[in-house]
């Protein structure tokens, strides 16, 4: 550790040895070890926001990259420990919260709370009073909270674009309370392009950018008009036929999950949930792509599934069968056809 220079100035990544020891503690679900390393950085003079942004955040990205090798439970355990680290780092520093009041939460159905938690702590450290509402905030709860407390800004986080159609209604309802909406997270698309489609007041790629934006003179103090969109008749048709589409795909698959192991394999691949949920997820991604009129959204999801299946030596035929059934059922849905075509290309042979 003799090469670890304690300098002030530009934020930098944690030293590799610290990052590795911290990640190892997460791997072993060693809460005391992980908290000890993070608080040790604070004691050594590293600012709390740097510990959050350059140790806790990158470790979580590393956890996310291990999906091919880890079980869901192991990934979940590491994430839980990291969330507790973020909280432990946060409570060590008192701030006055005089800049204003930020309400932060994950959109309905979104359970990836750690990036929002990190952003909440970083904003608090920058002098904001932050109310963190946590994962999957029901829209009615969020809106009544805004009406009751009248914060200066509501920040919403989304990791998966599947939640965007319902998020749009939540965002519009928040803007009607007069509260400007700040969006963050990869669920809003590369460069936040879907955030723009949904008419949010601003989008930021990460916590540091959120701090900078809220301090800038250009930040609107009032909500914008938002943007009305309903995804058109195709989206409405897809939603209306969801159960029927799921049933048709399940029938083709003989009731199995499209992510299931081939007949005769044993032990479980740790991937598939309820068969109808796995099919439903594909239909919901398609619906989100149609809503946002963006075939890449669906193509990227299918490509991700193909990589996941390949990493576990599983066939892609189940997903291919679902795409075939959807293409047949939705023959008069031109946008959906374009998305399915892109999905088929992403799935490969």
């Amino acid at each position, binding site marked *: 550790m003799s090469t670890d220079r304690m300098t002030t100035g530009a934020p930098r990544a944690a030293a590799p040895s610290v990052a590795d020891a911290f990640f*190892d503690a997460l*791997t*072993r*679900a*060693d*809460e*005391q*070890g992980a908290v000890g390393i993070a608080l040790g950085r604070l004691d050594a003079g590293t600012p709390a926001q740097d510990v959050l942004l350059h140790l806790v955040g990158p470790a979580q990205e590393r956890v996310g990259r291990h999906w*091919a*090798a*880890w*079980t869901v*439970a*192991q990934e*979940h*355990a590491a*994430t*839980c*420990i990291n*969330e*507790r680290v973020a909280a432990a780092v946060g409570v060590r520093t008192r701030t006055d919260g005089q800049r204003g009041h930020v309400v932060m939460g994950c959109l309905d*159905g979104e*359970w990836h709370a750690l990036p929002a938690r990190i952003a909440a702590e970083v904003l608090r450290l920058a002098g904001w009073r932050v109310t963190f509402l946590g*994962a*999957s905030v*029901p829209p009615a709860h969020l809106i009544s909270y805004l009406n009751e407390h009248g914060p200066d800004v509501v920040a919403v986080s989304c990791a998966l674009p599947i939640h965007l159609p319902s998020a749009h209604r939540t965002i519009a309802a928040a803007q009607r309370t007069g509260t400007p909406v700040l969006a963050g997270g990869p669920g809003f698309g590369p460069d936040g392009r879907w955030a723009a489609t949904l008419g949010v007041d601003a989008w930021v790629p990460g916590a540091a950018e959120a701090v900078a934006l809220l301090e800038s003179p250009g930040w609107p103090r009032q909500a914008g008009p938002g943007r009305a969109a309903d995804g058109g008749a195709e989206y409405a048709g897809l939603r209306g036929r969801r*159960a029927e589409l*799921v*049933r048709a795909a*399940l029938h083709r698959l003989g009731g199995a999950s499209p992510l299931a192991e081939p007949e005769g394999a044993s032990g479980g691949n740790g991937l598939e949930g*309820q068969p*109808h*949920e796995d099919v439903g997820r594909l239909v919901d991604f398609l619906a989100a792509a149609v809503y946002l009129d963006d075939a890449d959204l669906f193509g990227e999801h299918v490509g991700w599934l193909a990589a996941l299946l390949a*990493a*576990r*030596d599983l066939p892609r035929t189940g997903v291919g069968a679902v795409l075939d059934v959807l293409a047949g059922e939705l023959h008069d849905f031109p946008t959906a056809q374009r998305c399915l075509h892109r999905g088929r290309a992403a799935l490969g042979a």
Partner: protein
Amino acid sequence: MRLAAGGHPPPMVVRGSGVEPLEIPGMLVGGVARARFAARTVDLAAGEACVLYTDGVTEARGGVDGDAEFGEERLRRLLEGCHVLPAPGIAERVAQHATAWAVTGRDDIAVLVVQAPLPVAPAHPQEPSA
């Protein structure tokens, strides 16, 4: 851990060896003036957990046709292997799956997980093979 219940769904004990629903007899809370409740004791080894939940979890209606209950069996299977998770992770997993299951409306859901402290795995574990 000593448990009593008043018409609550059976707590699930999450162990390394599997998940056991724990039936506890008792009269409905608020149902009768002089209700009687039985008590049961469970021992939890390191990492093992007891999951208490309201009927909003097991009575969530969803599935292919939207009318199937989430049910105790689905909950039991969901908790298999969860002895490696910290308590907040177990509670979140239950809440996440029960709300994702429910397609129409939502009953209130409350989940409480009591866990004996997790054992810490030795350093440099072997990565499970993919």
